[in-house]
C-alpha cells in the first residue's frame, strides 16, 4: 500500500502551475466519469478551484472504439476559482485511441498535450485494430501531442480478472499521483462511492487505486503541483459539489415549492431525477405528466390552489407550454418555469448547449404577455435563482422563466453551501377569511400589484379566466377593461424594474470595448476579458441576469465605451458572409434587444457550435474587434 509520505519521496521532477486541465476519455461504460468526478471532488476538498464537465456520447450504447462513442470527463483544476471548462487540455488519459478523434475535432487538445494511452491495442489480435492504433499514434505525434503508450490493462490484470470494470480506479490512482492528491482523502471518496457494494468491492478498488498510483510513480515521470486557493478565500466556508441541474433541484427544495410537474426532456430531466430521489425528504412531489402542456397545466392548477409550482423543461417543451404560459400571464398566476436550453431549432442538438431560447421566452406568446425572464450565470445561481423566482412569482403574481443551459446543467463545481432560512420557504397556505369587498384583482393603479385569494378562503370565491376581464375577474369585452388589464399586467414589471440596481462592470467603467453577456458564458467571457486586459487591451464586460425587466442604467454604462458587443451562444449572421449587409444582418438575441433598448449600434459575436465557448476563442474575437477599432482611428 502507498501512503502520502512514500509518495512524496518517490515524487519525480515536479512542475508548478496555477492551473491544469485533465481529461479521461473511454468507451461508454468504462467508468471514466466516476474516476473524474472523484478526482474533482478530492481536488476541491484539497482547496483547488475545480470545474468538471462530462463528455457524453450521442448514442445510448455506441459501438466500442468509435469516435462517436467518446465518453468521459474533463476536470479543470486551479489555484483560483474556476468558472468554466477552459481551453485545451494539458493531460488526457485515453482507454483507446479512437475516442480521441472526436475530442480532437472539438479542439480539445493542443501541441504539447500529454496523452496517456492504453497500449494494449498495439498488439491486438485483430489486424485492423493494430493498424488503426499504429496509424493514430503516429498521427497524434505528428500533430504535436506527446503520447505515452502505457500497459494499463496489463497492470490491472494483476489485480482483477476484469479490468474493464476496474481500470477507472487505476487511472484515478495514476492521476492522484501525478497531482500528488491526498491519498487518504481519495480512498475515503472511493469507500463512500462503493459503500452499497460492500467491503470486498471497496478493497478491490483501493488496491487498483494503489496500483495505479505506484504505476505512475514507476512508469511516468510526470508530476504537477497545482497549489490550493489561498486559505483565507475559503476561511470557514463550507462547500457543496453539484452540477447545475442538481442545483435547480436544490433551489426548488430551498424555495419551499412542493410540486415539480414535468415531462422528460434532455438536458432538463436530470433535475427531476435528482428531485425524485430526495424530494420526499422535504415533503415534495415530482409529477411526470403525459406531455408538456399537461405538465404546465398541472403546475398552474397547483399554483391557483395556493401552492406555487415549478415546471422544468427545454426548448421543444417550452414551445408546447406557450399557450399555458399566456394563460398564467393573463390570469396573473405565480409559476416558476425553468428552461434548460439546448441546441435548436426543433429537436436540434438535444444534448448540447445553446442560448437560443431568450426571444421565445420573452415573445413566444401571441398577444402581449410580459413575465419575469431571468438567466442564471453560474451553477450556484441555478440554486439561488429558483428561490428568487418563487418569491418574484408570488410577489408580482406572475410566471417567471428561469433560463439555464446544457453547459450549466452538466458542469460540476464546488460552491458555497447555501444557508437556507425559513424566509426562503413558501409560507403555509393562507386560509383566513377574504374580505368579499376586495376584488380578486385589486390592482394598485400605480404598480399594478394586487393580492390573490386562494381556494379555501371563505369569501374569496372568484372565477379565474383567460378571457379579458375586470378587476372582479368578470369577462369583459369592452375597450376600457381590456386596456386597463393590459396596463396593469405590464406596469408590474416597471415596478419590479424600479427595485433593480444597475449591473456592475467587470473591468474599467470605460474603455475601447464592452462585452455584454448573459447566462452560462459569464466565466468564459470574464476570463477572456482578463486575459485581454493582461495584454493591455482596454476591454471590460457586463453580464445580465434580468432580461425582463431589463436591468437599469445600461445605456449610461454603454456610453463609456467606444464599442459594445454581445457574446452569445446562439445564431447571428456573420457580417462577412455573402448577401449579409448592415440592413439584412440578423443579430444575436440579446444584441437585438439591447439595440432596441439603447439605440446604440451594438455588435455581436455568436456561434452555434453546440459546445461552451472557450475563453481562448472569445479572447481572439475580442482582440480582432479591438484591432479593427484601432484601424478606425
Amino acid at each position, binding site marked *: 500500500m502507498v501512503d502520502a509520505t512514500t509518495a512524496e519521496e518517490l515524487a519525480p521532477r515536479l512542475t508548478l502551475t496555477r492551473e491544469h486541465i485533465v481529461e479521461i476519455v473511454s468507451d461508454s461504460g468504462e467508468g471514466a466519469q466516476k474516476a473524474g468526478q472523484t478526482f474533482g471532488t478530492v481536488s476541491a476538498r484539497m482547496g483547488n478551484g475545480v470545474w468538471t464537465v462530462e463528455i457524453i456520447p450521442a448514442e445510448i450504447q455506441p459501438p466500442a472504439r468509435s469516435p462517436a462513442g467518446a465518453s468521459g470527463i474533463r476536470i479543470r483544476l486551479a489555484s483560483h476559482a474556476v468558472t468554466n471548462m477552459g481551453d485545451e487540455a494539458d493531460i488526457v488519459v485515453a482507454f483507446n485511441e479512437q475516442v480521441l478523434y472526436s475530442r480532437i475535432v472539438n479542439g480539445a487538445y493542443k501541441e504539447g498535450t500529454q496523452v496517456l494511452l492504453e497500449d494494449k491495442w498495439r498488439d491486438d489480435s485483430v489486424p485492423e485494430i493494430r493498424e488503426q492504433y499504429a496509424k493514430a499514434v503516429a498521427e497524434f505525434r505528428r500533430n504535436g501531442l506527446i503520447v505515452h503508450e502505457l500497459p494499463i490493462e496489463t497492470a490491472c490484470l494483476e489485480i482483477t480478472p476484469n479490468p474493464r470494470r476496474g481500470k477507472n480506479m487505476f487511472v484515478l490512482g495514476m492521476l492522484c499521483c501525478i497531482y500528488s492528491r491526498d491519498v487518504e482523502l481519495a480512498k475515503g471518496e472511493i469507500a463512500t462511492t462503493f459503500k452499497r457494494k460492500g467491503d470486498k468491492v471497496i478493497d478491490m478498488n483501493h488496491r487498483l487505486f494503489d496500483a495505479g498510483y505506484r504505476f505512475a510513480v514507476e512508469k511516468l515521470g510526470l508530476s504537477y503541483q497545482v497549489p490550493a486557493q489561498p486559505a483565507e478565500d475559503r476561511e470557514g466556508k463550507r462547500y457543496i459539489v453539484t452540477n447545475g441541474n442538481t442545483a435547480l433541484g436544490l433551489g426548488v427544495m430551498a424555495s419551499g415549492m412542493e410540486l415539480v410537474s414535468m415531462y422528460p426532456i434532455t438536458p432538463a430531466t436530470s433535475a427531476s431525477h435528482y428531485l425524485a430521489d*430526495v424530494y420526499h425528504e*422535504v415533503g415534495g*412531489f415530482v409529477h411526470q405528466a403525459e406531455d408538456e402542456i399537461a405538465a404546465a397545466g398541472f403546475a398552474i392548477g397547483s399554483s391557483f*390552489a395556493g401552492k406555487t409550482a415549478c415546471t422544468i423543461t427545454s426548448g421543444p417543451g417550452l414551445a408546447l407550454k406557450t399557450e399555458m404560459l399566456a394563460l398564467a400571464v393573463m390570469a396573473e398566476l405565480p409559476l416558476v418555469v425553468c428552461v434548460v436550453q439546448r441546441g435548436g431549432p426543433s429537436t436540434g442538438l438535444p444534448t448540447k448547449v445553446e442560448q437560443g431560447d431568450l426571444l421565445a421566452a420573452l415573445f413566444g406568446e401571441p398577444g402581449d404577455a410580459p413575465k419575469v425572464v431571468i438567466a442564471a450565470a453560474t451553477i450556484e445561481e441555478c440554486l439561488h435563482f429558483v428561490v428568487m423566482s418563487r418569491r418574484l412569482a408570488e410577489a408580482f403574481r406572475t410566471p417567471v422563466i428561469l433560463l439555464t443551459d446544457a453547459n450549466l446543467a452538466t458542469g460540476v463545481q464546488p460552491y458555497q*453551501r447555501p444557508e437556507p432560512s*425559513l424566509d426562503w420557504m413558501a409560507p403555509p397556505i393562507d386560509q383566513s377569511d377574504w374580505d368579499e369587498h376586495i376584488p380578486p384583482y385589486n390592482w394598485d393603479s400605480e404598480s399594478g400589484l394586487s393580492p390573490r385569494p386562494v381556494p379555501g378562503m371563505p369569501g374569496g370565491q372568484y372565477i379565474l379566466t383567460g378571457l379579458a376581464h375586470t378587476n372582479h375577474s368578470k369577462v369583459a369585452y369592452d375597450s376600457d377593461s381590456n386596456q386597463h388589464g393590459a396596463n396593469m399586467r405590464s406596469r408590474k414589471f416597471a415596478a419590479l424594474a424600479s427595485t433593480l440596481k444597475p449591473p456592475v462592470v467587470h473591468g474599467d467603467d470605460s474603455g475601447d470595448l464592452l462585452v455584454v453577456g448573459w447566462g452560462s458564458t459569464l466565466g468564459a467571457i470574464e476570463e477572456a476579458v482578463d486575459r485581454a486586459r493582461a495584454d493591455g487591451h482596454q476591454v471590460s464586460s457586463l453580464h445580465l441576469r434580468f432580461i425582463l425587466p431589463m436591468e437599469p442604467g445600461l445605456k449610461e454604462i454603454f456610453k463609456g465605451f467606444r464599442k459594445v458587443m454581445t457574446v452569445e451562444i446562439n445564431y447571428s449572421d456573420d457580417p462577412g458572409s455573402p448577401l449579409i449587409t448592415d440592413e439584412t444582418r440578423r443579430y444575436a438575441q440579446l444584441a437585438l434587444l439591447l439595440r432596441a433598448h439603447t439605440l446604440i449600434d451594438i455588435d455581436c459575436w455568436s456561434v452555434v457550435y453546440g459546445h461552451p465557448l472557450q475563453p481562448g476563442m472569445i479572447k481572439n474575437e475580442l482582440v480582432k474587434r479591438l484591432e479593427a477599432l484601432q484601424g478606425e482611428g
Partner: protein
Amino acid sequence: MFGLKADWSLELFERYFTMGDYAGGEARWCPGCGDHAVLTAAQKVLRDEQQRPEMSVCVSGIGCSSRMPHYLGTFGFHGLHGRALPVACGIKARRPELDVWVATGDGDCFSIGTAHWIHALRYNMDMTLMVFDNAIYGLTKAQTSPTSPHGFKTNTHPFGAILEPHNPLTVTLGVTNVSFVAQVADWNPPLLYETLKAAYRHKGTGFVRIIQRCPVYADSFSKELQQNPDRFLLLQHQRGIPVDKSVSRQFPNRMEHDPSDLARAFQLAADTARLPLGLLYHNPDAQCYEDLSSQGVEMTPEKRLEGFNAVLDRITI
C-alpha cells in the same frame, strides 16, 4: 362526501348553505340549452351535500359548457380549450381537501383534450367530471365534433360529417384505473341529479357523459333522441343509480346491469342503437393519484428546512 372530511364536519352544522350560496353570475346560455339543467342539478347536489362553496372549485376549458364556473358561487377556473383536466388534477395534487368539478364539452374533452381525458382517467383523482356532449362545437358556431352524427351538416362539413361518431364510452371503459362511468341526458333532471350526486360521492374520477341539447346548432341530434325514448336503455341495479318510478316510466327499455361487470359495460356501451343511461361501470376501490401526490403536505416549513439541511449535509464536502 359527508363525514369524509371530518375536519370540517363541525362547521357543517354551524351554517346551512342554500341554493343562493352556489349561484354565481346569471347564466347566459341560449334559451332551451341543456346546460341550464346541468347547472341546476350540480347546484342541488352541492346544496344537498352542504359542500362549502369556498372549498369547491369548478374547472373548465373553453366552450359554451365551459362557462359553467361563471354561474357557480364556488371558486372557478375557466382555462384553455381542452386543458381543464390537467389544471383540475394540479389543483387536487397538493390540495386534496378541495372539492373539484370539471365542466367540459365534446370538443373540449374528446377532440383537443383527448390526451388529458385518457390520462386523467388513469390518475383517477377524486373529482366530478361532467362532459356536456351536444355533438357540436357550440361556442364557435357549429363545427363538427367527434360525436357529431355521420352526415350531420355543420359549417366545417356543409355536406354532412364524414366520420362515424366517436364513442367516448367504449374508449373510457378501456382505460386502466377508470373507476366510475355513467351516461345521462340533460332532459331527465332526476336521473341527472342522482347521477351527479353518485359521481360526487364516489372517491375517484366520476366520469359522466351528459347528452345535451343544443337547440341552436344541433337541434335534430337531441330532438331525435327526445322523441324516441326507446333509443335509450335504462340501467338499473341496487349498486347503480337510484331511479324512481318517474324516471323508469319514461324509458321503455330497462335492464339490470351490475356496474362491476366491465366486459358487459363495454358491450352495452358499444351498442350505439341503444344508448345506455345510468351507471355503466363502478370500481370504488381504484387508487387515487392525490393519495400519492399529496405526500408530505402536512410538513411545516420548519420540517422542510430540516429535511433540506439533511440533504445538503450529504453533498457537503
